[in-house]
């Protein structure tokens, strides 16, 4: 096999791994959209906020220290202790559940029955709000997330595959972190599916996703389900935040992964969990392959910014509800 062909395969594998991370963010969108019809733009900022909180708790920072110092004129920064990673993750989860409750209680409970565009705008407002709160709580400097995830290329894979090609080929370069992310994402998706299929709350969640009124009439509390869904989205955001944060540092640009997840959603359909995963993989592979074959050599690179959108756009013209979305039937 020629080296070019093998490098092409390497690009595809790396694209798949990137796609897993996109799918992870898209999953959070789908969960909320299915259950409440809210298109949650704040998902990316939730990932950022979760990662910031995790780092802040681990390093023992005092929340809002900047604000407190400005008002009271004090000089406090941290408690002086360090929290082990697992405990910190647990605490972050509690924060995310509290956040889910607050969002439901103070914002979306009052917006039930509004038009989707209004709900969407509210989540953009929420995104701004949460970004500001995150910066106020933990500061806006770039932080490194050190919870012991492996980094760098996998030598094992590289040595194992170097025999495949000729002299010009040195084996596949695959980031260990991407491999971990793939495994974590798989576990998370399986966990979510099991939760939705076999637990009482999960079934209630699916019932709400199917039909709000019918769910209400059999005694399911919509309020509880929506808090639950936002909490699950918070969990997904935490996982996505940890993975992206470990990859590129915890900083503002982390919240932009929400924009990466949008074409994934379009491709897969807003209401389908398998759609989010397949869409993520297609987009991940597609944009890496396009950049490798056409973007970098002919178009001057950085095509990854828009290729996913164009792909999704062209795809939608032929299938307006996405790959797995529900077919829209409109009546007058």
């Amino acid at each position: 096999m020629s080296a070019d062909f093998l490098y092409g395969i390497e690009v595809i594998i790396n694209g798949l791994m990137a796609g897993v991370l996109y799918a992870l963010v898209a999953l959070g969108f789908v969960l909320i959209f299915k259950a409440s019809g809210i298109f949650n733009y704040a998902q990316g900022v939730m990932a950022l906020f979760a990662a910031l909180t995790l780092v802040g708790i681990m390093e023992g920072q005092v929340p809002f220290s900047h604000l407190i110092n400005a008002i009271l004129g004090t000089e406090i920064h941290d408690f002086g202790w360090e929290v082990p990673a697992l405990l910190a993750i647990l605490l972050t989860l509690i924060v995310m559940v509290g956040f889910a409750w607050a969002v439901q209680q103070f914002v979306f409970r009052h917006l039930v029955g509004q038009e989707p565009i209004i709900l969407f705008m509210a989540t953009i407002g929420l995104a701004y709000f949460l970004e500001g709160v995150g910066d106020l709580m933990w500061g806006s400097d770039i932080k490194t997330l050190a919870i012991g995830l492996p980094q760098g290329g996998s030598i094992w894979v590289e040595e194992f595959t170097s025999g495949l090609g000729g002299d010009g080929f040195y084996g596949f370069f695959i980031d260990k972190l991407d491999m971990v992310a793939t495994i974590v994402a798989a576990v998370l998706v399986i966990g979510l599916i099991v939760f939705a299929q076999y637990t009482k709350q999960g079934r209630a969640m699916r019932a709400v996703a199917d039909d709000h009124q019918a769910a209400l009439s059999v005694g399911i509390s919509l309020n509880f389900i929506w808090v639950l869904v936002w909490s699950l989205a918070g969990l997904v955001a935490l996982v996505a935040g940890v993975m992206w944060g470990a990859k590129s540092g915890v900083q503002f640009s982390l919240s932009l992964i929400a924009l990466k997840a949008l074409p994934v959603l379009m491709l897969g359909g807003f209401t389908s969990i398998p759609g989010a995963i397949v869409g993520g993989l297609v987009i991940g592979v597609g944009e890496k392959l396009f950049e490798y074959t056409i973007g970098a050599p002919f178009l001057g690179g950085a095509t990854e910014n828009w290729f996913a959108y164009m792909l999704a756009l062209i795809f939608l013209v032929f299938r307006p509800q996405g790959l797995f979305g529900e077919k829209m039937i409109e009546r007058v």
Partner: protein
Amino acid sequence: MFYREAGDFKTSYEADSQTFPIAFDRWRYWAILAVAYLVIPFVINDYWASALLVPFLIYAIASIGLNILVGYCGQVSLGTGGFMAVGAYACYKLMTSFPDVSIVVHVLLAGGITAMVGTAFGLPSLRIKGFYLAVATLAAQFFLVWLFNKVAWFYNYSASGQINAPERFVFGVPVTGANTSAPAQYLVCLVFLTFCALLARNLTRGTVGRSWMAIRDMDIAAEIIGVNPLKAKLTAFAVSSFFIGIAGALFFSVYLGAVEVGEAFGIQKSFLVLFMVIIGGLGSIFGSFAGAAFLVILPVALKVVGVDLLGWPTDLVAHLQLVIVGGLIMFFLIKEPHGLAQLWRLAKEKLRLWPFPY
């Protein structure tokens, strides 16, 4: 007492179909125009022009444009930043290629070019609806910004990748470039805003506007009663992009003077203009003005209070600003989902009866 139709007799068809049927509204309209054209240019200074008034005028044009698309025709667009960039770069290319032609013509032509680009990106709206369309317009946003970054022809191969507005004159007064005075900047934008607002107001009252609203309220029903969805949607995209293109051209040439595309016309700009439209009120020209004014004034006011009065560090105030803007947006949507225009409508209803309770 003074705000009602009674006693205001219409004796011709023109009088019957005029924009403001109530006499008080007409007086108010002329009074505002008089203040805007005859008072403000003489008292304006650089700070007021660059911090508040000029951005307000330009954003008002952009949000009228977006309001036509989102509020009147119901097609949600997140590509505003990209279309503004088209306007800005079209204006730049025209200004540098044809230095002898008036800048006013260039700005209008830039709007026309943006209208064509907008129509092209509006084509998918015939198949795609709702959020799928909103996300699809993001393709325009990212692709256009990438294009203006990568293709050197658009920025005349300048080393920095920026575009800089050369000096141009209207009636012998510089309106772009370094020597522009605050009143000149202000007046140019004001003239364009007046033109756009009149155009938008009359378009939305006429056949085109009614077909837009029919499509917005229910596109299938509209199609059945004989509204051509292709024509209605594409004209909405074209007119909306025309306004947004003018706003982009003015934003670059008159207001900023030098622009780096990713910074000035990024996705944040799209959201900002959409916020103006939503907070102001969907489907209302007045709402576009109110929303633009609100979101231009708010950050400035917060900065004045935070940095200048309380003496807090700027980065802290910037973070607080995010919290407050985000919180206010949510608050507004909960309290008044139909925007500031709805408050205005309610006030007018009350005024009609005043001083009687019923």
